[in-house]
Each structure stands twice: as C-alpha cells, then as structure tokens.
C-alpha cells in the first residue's frame, strides 16, 4: 500500500511528544502530515509552528483554507478552527466544537478517512480526553492504519487509552519507536 497522508492528534503533553516524533522522523518520509493539537484560542499566531519547526527541517505552519497538501510539509490545525482534509487539499471550518474541542481530532481524522481511505495513517498521542478515538476508528474502518502511543509512556494516558478501547490498533508504540515504524510503512512497503 502506498500511504499518502499522516494524521496526528494530541492534546495534553502534545508539544513534547510532537517535538520528539518530528525530530525522529526519517527524512525519507515525504508524506504530508496534518496535526490537530488542542490549544488555547488565544495562543499567539503561529507559536506552535515555530516551536515545532525547531525540531525538524520540514516546513511547519498553521493550515490555511484550501492549502494544497505538499510533500514534507507539516500542517497544524489553527486555534479555534476545525481542520478538514479533502483529496489533496485542506479546508477549515468554524462549526461547533466537537466534544468541547475546536480543532477536533475526530473531525480531522474522519475527513482524512473519507478523503484518503486506505492511504491514510492515523496516530493518537498523549492527551487528557477522549477526542480522536472515534476518528481513529474511522481511519481503520476505511482501511487505513491506526497507531496509538503506548499509554504507559504517555504524559497523559486517557487519550491513548480511549483510542485503544475504540480501535483494534495496528501498533501501540512508544514515541521513539514511531519513526522506524513509519519508515517501514511509508518507505519499505512502497519499495517492495
């Protein structure tokens, strides 16, 4: 299978987990990455992107409406918007918060599943609520890959626990194991 999109959801503890994941990610992985990280509405413009960019040489920025998905780019759901995935591009929405969250990880995952089906990889990282579980199940149900951070190694385990309860995950990994695993999915399988 040729995977074409990596979608990551996280909340409490996400900054550290994302920093580590992005810094470990093998350079050969070119798939665009979309991230929904719960954050405060008033967080300064582009602050999270600047923090994450210190850990990777990929382009990291807040998504804009109708952005075309480019290889080796990392797109963040902007504060107070839902990030929706379309085929090859992104869209934003200010619809109601889902489970009190905007951005909602579920919304991003569900639209990623719709647009990319079996070509999507979904990853749930540390977090202190249940967002992302239903969406990850959708990705898996559409034939995509479901990966969850090992709850024991997560700063907050509730989000990974909820995902594991909702999905028969393809892999439950510590953060440092994710880079090599993604390399296997995105690079080796494609070559075989």
């Amino acid at each position, binding site marked *: 299978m040729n995977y074409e999109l990596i979608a990551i959801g996280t909340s409490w503890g996400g900054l550290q987990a994302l920093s580590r994941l992005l810094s470990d990610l093998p350079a050969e992985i070119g798939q665009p990455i979309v991230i929904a990280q719960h954050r405060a509405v*008033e967080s300064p*413009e582009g602050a999270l992107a600047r923090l994450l960019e210190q850990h990777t040489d990929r382009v990291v920025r*807040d*998504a*804009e*409406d*109708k952005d075309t998905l480019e290889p080796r780019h990392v797109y963040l759901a*902007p504060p*107070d*918007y*839902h990030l*929706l*995935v*379309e085929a090859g591009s992104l*869209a*934003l*929405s*200010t*619809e*109601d918060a889902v489970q009190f969250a905007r951005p909602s990880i579920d*919304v991003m995952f*569900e*639209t990623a599943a*719709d*647009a990319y*089906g079996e070509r999507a990889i979904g990853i749930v990282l540390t977090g202190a609520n249940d967002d992302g579980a239903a969406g990850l199940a959708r990705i898996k149900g559409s034939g995509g890959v479901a990966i969850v951070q090992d709850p024991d190694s997560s700063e907050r385990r509730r989000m990974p626990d909820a995902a594991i309860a909702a999905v028969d995950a393809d892999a439950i990994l510590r953060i440092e194991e994710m880079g090599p695993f993604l390399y296997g999915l995105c690079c080796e399988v494609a070559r075989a």
Partner: protein
Amino acid sequence: MSEPPALPRRAEDLERLEIELLLEGVFRRYGFDFREYAQASLKRRLWRRVYAEHLETIAQLLDRLLHDPRCMERLLLDLSINVTAMFRDPSFYVALREKVVPLLRTYPFTRIWAAGCSTGEEVYSLAIVLQEEDLYEKTRIYATDINEAVLERARTGVFPLDKMQQYTQNYINAGGQRSFSEYYVAAYDSAQFSRSLVDNVVFAQHNLAMDRSFNEFNLILCRNVMIYFDKALQDRVHALFYESLETFGVLALGHKESINFTAFADRYEELDSNERIYRKVA
C-alpha cells in the same frame, strides 16, 4: 449513444453520487445552490441532518427534502449557521480601529457590507466599534445571509447570557473603550443588545453563490464564510466583491483565508497581512 459514466463501485462512490443527486435536487426544487460548497464540511452537515431526521442514507434525505419544505428549512439552518462569537479574533478589531477606521473617516458617508452575517455576532461587534469611533451615524451596514431564519435571529440582537464573559474578554482585547455591559440588558438567560446598534443596519437575504452585486461599498467583511465554498465558488465570490467595492475600498477576510491564489490578488494591496485586510487599488 454516448458511453455511460463510470458506475459507482465502492461505498464512497455511491455516497458521492447520492450527495450530487441531493444537491441537484435541492437546487431544482428550491433554487438554493450548494453544488459548489466544500465537500468535507458539506458531507458532515448532510450526515448530521440524516441522523437528526432518523434516516439512514443521504438518498432518503433527498426524498424527504423534495416532499417536505420544512425539512429543507432545517437543512438550510444546518448549512447556514456558522458558529462565531462577538469580537472573535480581537486582534482583527484592533486592526479595524487602527487601519480601516481612519480611511472610513475620509468619507462623508460609508456603506459597509457584512456578507454571510449568519446570526449577527460580527455585525453587532462592528456596530459597537463604529459607535465608539463616532462613525456610526454616517454609516449604513448591509448585513446579508442566504437564510431568512438566521437573519431573523440576527435582527433580534439576543445572544446567550452565558457567552457574555467570553465576549467581554474579547471586547477588552479588541480595544473596547467602555464597559461591555453598557451594550446589553440581561434578562433570564439572554442578553438583549441595544437597539441603537442596529438603527443603521439593513438585514437582507442575499445568496453569495447566486445573487449579483447590489451596491458599491467602502468596506466588505466576509470572515470565515468562504471557507465553506470550493475554489471555483470562492473565485466567483471574489469577483462579486471586487465588483462591489469602490476603488480604495477595503476587503476583510478571516485569519486563515487569503486572496493570494485568486485572480484578484494583484488588484489589492495588503493593509494588514496578519489580519487579512486588503484594499482595492486597481
């Protein structure tokens, strides 16, 4: 005979076909054109309506829509309510005061179009800024939306009381000059905003997807409305706005919207790049 189109093979293909038929049906039955709305959010809203009606498929929803106009009213609400807040993005209102208000002062009379105003939070915020800047008396605001029902809500100026704490904070961050509570009266769980804020507002139905320009404006606000449109429809609405702005008129978009990739990019200059405020120059 021409070749038949490719038949749907997978569940997603069938769903896409159902959505196309529904949008075509709605257009031909009621004249509302949602065929160029962005797919992902449209699909989410359609499914929400399917479940709310206790149906199972989008095709079943089409059946009900065709035969029951009240179902169409409910769907129209789903598709036209865009959740917003008073003084959403306070930094935008700071830029409005600092960069747009001085321009508006140069006109003897100002016409403003709030396009896709939904339930009116932005219109009331704008009116407050104009009152505090002593511009309101010589301003007319045209607030339009596709849906008469949400306009009716906007006209009442009643917002949930439990939002006032957040709106007050937004108002302060937006450079508000008074006490926010001066603008409303609390009654039970509602906040009734001052009628003086809508003295110079005309609420009118207008469909960005289909209707033409109806005036020439000094300022057009259309924030977080076109994110629900696909690229082709966005381009058409940009043409409509360009045509509706006088030279040196100002266009304000949402924080994550841009005119950079439209045909009109070089017809505007940036007044504030972060706040996506543009000025028509050519």
